[in-house]
């Protein structure tokens, strides 16, 4: 009995030791991968950052108004944000490869899923980034047009434009991430958003003068007093 216990115990210890011995190199490999991953990710980050600076990426994002967005969120400049994001992504990738080396069942599947998911994530983030930019741009355009056309409640209009675009963008993002089927709301948003974006685009870019004229005719003419002279700017 005692021997049995001892033998079982020693066998367990043996197995533990063997298992440990079996896993230890993998663990070491994982740690090496993690460390090497950090180094590679850091290198990629530095490289990307200097590349973006060289390409005047910050200036570009300033021009499109992206920097404003980041400023508002108290984030560092766009090139810094992007290179940090890439750093984490690369490092995480290495760590996940390391984890898969450990050979833990189930985890491997998740890791594979992660890599499969990566391109979609990128696309989604890309859409989100520019979608938010567009939302800011068009809402401001609507605001300015409304103010200069003396339309009542310009900020409401501006907010509506922004909301519609964001809903629209989010729906695309969820779709891209494969989560779309889960919400009917988003589907509705796509339809509604597309319609409203179309209108917003038409009024915003396609015919801003026309739209202005339309708005003016619609809202201003009745207010104009008889015999009033218009100011001449030039």
């Amino acid at each position, binding site marked *: 009995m005692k021997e049995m216990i001892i033998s079982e115990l020693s066998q367990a210890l043996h197995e533990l030791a063997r298992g440990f011995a079996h896993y230890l190199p993998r663990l070491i490999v994982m740690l090496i991968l993690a460390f090497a991953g950090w180094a590679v990710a850091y290198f990629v980050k530095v490289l990307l950052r200097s590349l973006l600076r060289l390409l005047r990426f910050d200036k570009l994002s300033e021009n499109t*108004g992206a920097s404003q967005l980041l400023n508002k969120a108290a984030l560092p400049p766009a090139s810094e944000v992007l290179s940090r994001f890439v750093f984490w992504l690369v490092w995480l990738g290495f760590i996940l490869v390391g984890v898969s080396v450990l050979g833990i069942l189930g985890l491997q599947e998740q890791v594979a899923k992660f890599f499969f998911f990566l391109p979609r994530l990128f696309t989604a983030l890309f859409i989100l980034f520019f979608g938010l930019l567009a939302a800011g741009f068009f809402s401001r355009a609507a605001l300015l047009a409304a103010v*200069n056309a003396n339309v009542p409640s310009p900020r409401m209009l501006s907010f509506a434009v922004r909301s519609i675009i964001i809903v629209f963008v989010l729906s695309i993002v969820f779709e891209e991430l494969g989560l779309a089927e889960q919400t009917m709301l988003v589907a509705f948003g796509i339809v509604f958003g597309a319609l409203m974006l179309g209108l917003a685009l038409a009024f915003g870019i396609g015919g801003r003068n026309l739209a202005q004229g339309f708005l003016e005719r619609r809202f201003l003419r009745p207010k104009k007093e008889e015999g009033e002279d218009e100011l001449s*700017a030039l």
Partner: protein
Amino acid sequence: MSHDALALPPLRTEIKLAEETFLTDDFLRQLINVGEVDVLVGLATHNNAKTIGAIVQSIQSCILRSYTRDRVVIINADGGSRDGTPELVTGISIDDLRPLSNLHSLRTLHSISTQYANTPSSTAALRTILAAAELLRAKACVVMSPESPSIDGEWISKLLHPVRYDSFDLATPTYRRHKFEGLLITNLLYPMTRALYGLRIREPYMQDFGFSGRLGSEFLSQNAWADGSGEDGIELRLTLAAITGKRRICQSFLGQKEHVERRSADLVPALRQTVGPMFATLESTFSTWSSVTGSQPVPTFGPEHEVSLGPLRVNRKRLRQMFSSGVAELETVFHSILAPSTLVELQRIARLEEEDFVYPAELWVKTVYEFAASYQKSVINRDHIIQALAPLFRGRVLTFLTENRNGTAEDVENNIEGLCLEFERLKPYLLQMWETRE
């Protein structure tokens, strides 16, 4: 090796030439027939049939009277008129193809028309005219607004003569105008050009002007066209090009500038055409304007300007309301553009009662300078910056109207002069913002 090095540049030139053909074949053929000219009269038209007939008649009679020996061509760049405008222009040609007329002219007079696009664009029109001037090696050119009903032949002489005979490169116009006409010019363009570049050019945004072939070619080759930045406000850009190119500039008094009916909705396009290019060129001309202090008059033929008085009914309430609502509604936008102290001050005056309302000159100048600096930094979309200026300009106009309501011509001039000096005085403020832009 030297072979290859020699072979490359022509290839590049070819590509460039291929891209540069914006003149139609038909127009080129007409230009070939015109040949070299001494004087080119340019007209940028779009559905101007009502006024253009009288204008081209006066152009023709001026040429027959004062430029009998010169080779003259009238070039009409049309933006797709559907009312027969081009035919009215080409109809004044003098040649041996038409039945004999009693017109006494030594020479053939070509009056030709080309349609540069289906939509009007003063930039495309002027570009066409400049290209024609260069191809025809015109010595002196004059561009006339196709809608001034009061134009007479003398105007052409007044703009042409300094260029043709006194070797000026640019003849800008001055007019007799109502004191409340051209408010953007008196309240922004004139004072700011003057403060920045040190030249007192009364109408930097020109609708009728004369220029030398040399200046035209130089301007054409600057090629601000291709990148789209030269899209608007070509007229002002030409003035600025003459200034920064250190060209000889003069002013010619033309006469009464008739009021052309405009709508208040035209304000934003007007800003785009004038303030936009003004701000946009600040960066490239920094070396010129940063060192200028004070201002000098430019040689002027005739009076420097004349002001007519008379009642003008303006809806002041609406100006006031649009200013205030603009300041309130655009707060977030102004946060990006204006200095905090300026915004606070604007918000303060926006709350004033109508009779107490005043948008002081100093605050207006600071506003404009801060807009210019923000434009340069592209804090938000540049067109949005220009649009955001519109409500503030309305506020400034209201103050200008109030201050000069009962003013004589002299009072109005003094008021404008005061504003100019304020622009000049505060110029270091702009420079300071410019230098801390990074």
